[in-house]
């Protein structure tokens, strides 16, 4: 049947990509039967949204220092609540997701990547519904948490897979339909992961508490939420990761300058922020380096070739007393080029009453008009995909130049590492925006064509004001 032939072609492409192994190939062939009713059953149930308050166990008083017994009992209670909710709710949400995937055009469903994702979700659905419905005590909890953990790990690559799959299916579905499907799916996925991860990490934290004889107060971390998250620290971490990746690919990288209200702390989900920061910094850093190449900026020539439009005399201060013209970049730490001639990426932190704003500015040349409308599309990328047959990827420059023997190597390097490749799969921006908006925040990108980009990231503090936010 079609499944067999799909399977054999899958084998060929699989070895080429090194992405899907042979054993997984067999699994992919065992697609769910048409006659399995349970998915429909569950999918037709109402989603029970949980308020953020309940999910994150906020509202429980923080200090269990003096009364470890009471604190532990309370922890367990919260833990059980969340786990029970997860056991009930996850199958419903998974079923809906599966159902949505079943509605995709048949040809799209036969794409190996999409099929693999579908299988993953279906198997997870099976596993969870097969586990005992009642979670009575600590042991049940431990078992269930372990199950969830395994599932979460197996789903780690879902987004890259989906992205690749839909990239290949571009010609079979309208752009808006792909976008809508992926937006919904990713939002659902975030919710599912949040619930699952919360159950898992609450359990693990409690476990840690019990094991340690010393009462270590971890009140600032509640499951996946960190109540004293310091963006400046996270930015530093993401920046060095991104810079390293950039060094591997391009040989150099710009500095990342952090300023503003750097002591800001707020309550948020660190993994979300980490993902967002990595994506945005990756874009900025890559753009800066490529722009330097374009403009001939280098260690010996920090301002680039004639294409740079600055006035000829640097260090020129003039003006009329109110307005001061200052073209001397070396004085300004947010503009001073580093040893490689790259101007820095500037990250500014601001603390508002209910939210934190992070602004990222780069000198990467901005985004051209033609590209700008498409940057929030899935599968839009300015990195040439060697396997892509379609010509409508608008790309003016490839960072790799003509076929080089290092092409394959650097491609692998790009795809390795936490958080995915430095560029090329085209889902970074839309995904980032969905994450940003998830707890009521937002993300705006302004392109200053010929100069650089500014990104404004607004994140709402996860506090009582968000208590009623439904997940």
């Amino acid at each position, binding site marked *: 049947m079609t499944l067999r032939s799909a399977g054999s072609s899958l084998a060929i492409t699989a070895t080429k990509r090194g992405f899907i192994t042979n054993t997984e190939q067999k699994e992919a062939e065992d697609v769910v039967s048409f006659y399995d009713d349970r998915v429909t059953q569950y999918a037709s149930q109402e989603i029970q949204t949980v308020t953020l308050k309940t999910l994150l166990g906020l509202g429980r008083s923080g200090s269990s220092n003096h009364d470890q017994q009471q604190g532990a009992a309370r922890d367990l209670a919260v833990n059980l609540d969340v786990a029970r909710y997860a056991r009930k709710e996850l199958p419903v949400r998974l079923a809906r997701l599966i159902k949505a995937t079943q509605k995709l055009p048949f040809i799209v469903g036969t794409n190996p990547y999409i099929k693999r994702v579908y299988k993953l979700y279906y198997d997870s659905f099976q596993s969870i519904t097969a586990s005992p419905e009642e979670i009575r005590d600590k042991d049940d909890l431990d078992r269930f948490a372990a199950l969830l953990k395994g599932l979460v790990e197996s789903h780690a690559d879902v987004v890259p897979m989906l992205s690749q799959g839909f990239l290949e299916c571009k010609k079979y579905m309208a752009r808006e339909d792909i976008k809508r499907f992926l937006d919904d799916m990713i939002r659902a996925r975030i919710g599912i992961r949040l619930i699952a991860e919360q159950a898992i990490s609450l359990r693990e934290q409690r476990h840690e508490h019990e094991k340690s004889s010393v009462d270590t107060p971890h009140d600032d971390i509640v499951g996946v939420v960190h109540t004293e998250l310091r963006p400046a620290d996270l930015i530093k971490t993401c920046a060095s990761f991104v810079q390293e990746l950039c060094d591997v690919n391009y040989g150099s990288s710009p500095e990342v300058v952090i300023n503003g209200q750097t002591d800001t702390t707020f309550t948020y989900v660190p993994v979300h922020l980490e993902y967002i920061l990595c994506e945005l910094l990756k874009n900025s850093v890559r753009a800066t380096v490529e722009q330097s190449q374009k403009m001939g900026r280098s260690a010996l020539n920090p301002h680039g070739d004639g294409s740079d*439009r600055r006035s000829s005399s640097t260090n020129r201060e003039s003006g009329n007393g109110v307005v001061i*013209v200052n073209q001397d970049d070396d004085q300004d730490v947010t503009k001073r080029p580093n040893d490689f001639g790259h101007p820095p990426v500037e990250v500014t932190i601001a603390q508002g009453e209910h939210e934190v704003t992070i602004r990222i500015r780069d000198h990467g040349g901005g985004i051209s008009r033609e590209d700008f409308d498409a940057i929030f599309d899935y599968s839009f990328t300015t990195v040439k995909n060697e396997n892509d047959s379609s010509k409508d990827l608008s790309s003016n420059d490839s960072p790799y130049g003509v076929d080089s023997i290092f092409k394959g190597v650097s491609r692998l390097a790009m795809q390795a590492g936490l958080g995915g490749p430095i560029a090329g799969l085209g889902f970074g921006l839309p995904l980032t925006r969905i994450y940003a908006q998830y707890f009521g925040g937002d993300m705006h990108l302004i392109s*200053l064509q010929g100069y650089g980009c500014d990104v404004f990231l607004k994140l709402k503090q996860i506090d009582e004001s968000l208590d009623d936010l439904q997940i």
Partner: protein
Amino acid sequence: MPNSNLNNAPTAITTSAFSPQSSPLFKMNNPASIVKQPQARRRYSPQHFYQNRILDPYVHQAVSPITLRQLVFFGRNMQEDKLLKSANYVRTELPIRLAHRIRDFQNLPFIVGTNPHIELVYDLYWQAFEKIVKIPEIKTLEENDAFCEMIKGLLNDHLVVIPQLALGIMECSKHIPAAQVDQFMSKMLRSRISRRVLAEQHITLTSNFNSPNHMMTDRGYIGIIYTHIKPRDIVERTGLLAADTCRQASGGMAPPKVLLDGNIDAEFTYIPDHIEYILYELLKNSMRFVMQNGKRDPTTGELPPIQVTVCEGTHEIVFRVSDKGGGIHPEMESQLWSYAQSPAREAAMLLDRHAPSRAQSAQKSSFSTTASSPQQYKNQSLHLGIGLPMSRVYAEYWGGDLKVFTMHGYGTDAYAKFCKFGNIYENFDD
């Protein structure tokens, strides 16, 4: 030759035929002191209802929008026949554009139309329409001169339109939903800009043609358009103006400095007045926020400077105005682009310790013809509160835009974008 010209600071003011105080910057601060009293009860007479017929053919005609480039090419090498052509284009185009807006007025809820400020503007428009429609085809330079004089008079009389409209619409905001208010005002303002561009361009072309000034065209001054606008000059000029305003409004406190960088010497073609209006608004806002915020550098004691960056792309030029004024309060943020009055805006205006009380300014602004001090009007224009939405209308006029992003607790960034090539058609609804 070009260099010496720059030292004379080529302001749009000196190129236009008007007195120095005629750029939009000053217009809002010093509206005509004599306000025409509307003919009493005229609007409600049956005569007016039936007379309205003359509007119909114009309402049904389509407008002919133009691009900046077309104006430039047309305005070069001015000759008599071209000038007359321009005159007749203005003569026929203005009534059409006016008629469309008059019809919008007529479509407002009746109660809104009885507001004295709205009524005033409606009458001004109606009278202008009647006047222009009566003019026959312009065939000689003398007729053109008379035409220009008349138009000049109208432009002058209509200086009060914006404050009157703004006040009227604010007073009526309980009768119409905010979204509708915003739509109405946007339409009005867009059309107004378009009519004034047409009129002022023609008047300036005429005066340049008549006087030895027609040599100015060689230097890049084509009517009210200038083909060698340098961002540096505009920012320096508007920065000074904004600083003056803020210094006076605050009773002598020194405003923050403005640091300028980027492509400050990039040259492009545009109407300097428009850019100045926008930059003045943005710089004034930034300065105000910084001064109100009050935070100073611990070592120097200075207010944090405002950073203006000029970014030149292939198609566009962007002015980024960035301040550390603490950001825009969330309540005000939602009303940033609105023309309607709202409790949030009122509260925000009250927060402003430099604002005159609303009652006071409202009284002064209505029909009273007693001369109020320029100071009063200056403060009033500071706090009509529509500087931003108006700036956006200017920015969007030829395909640009204006965006404002705030970082609560830190500061605000504004981005004013203009198209470089002038090949975008006028943006005004019709």
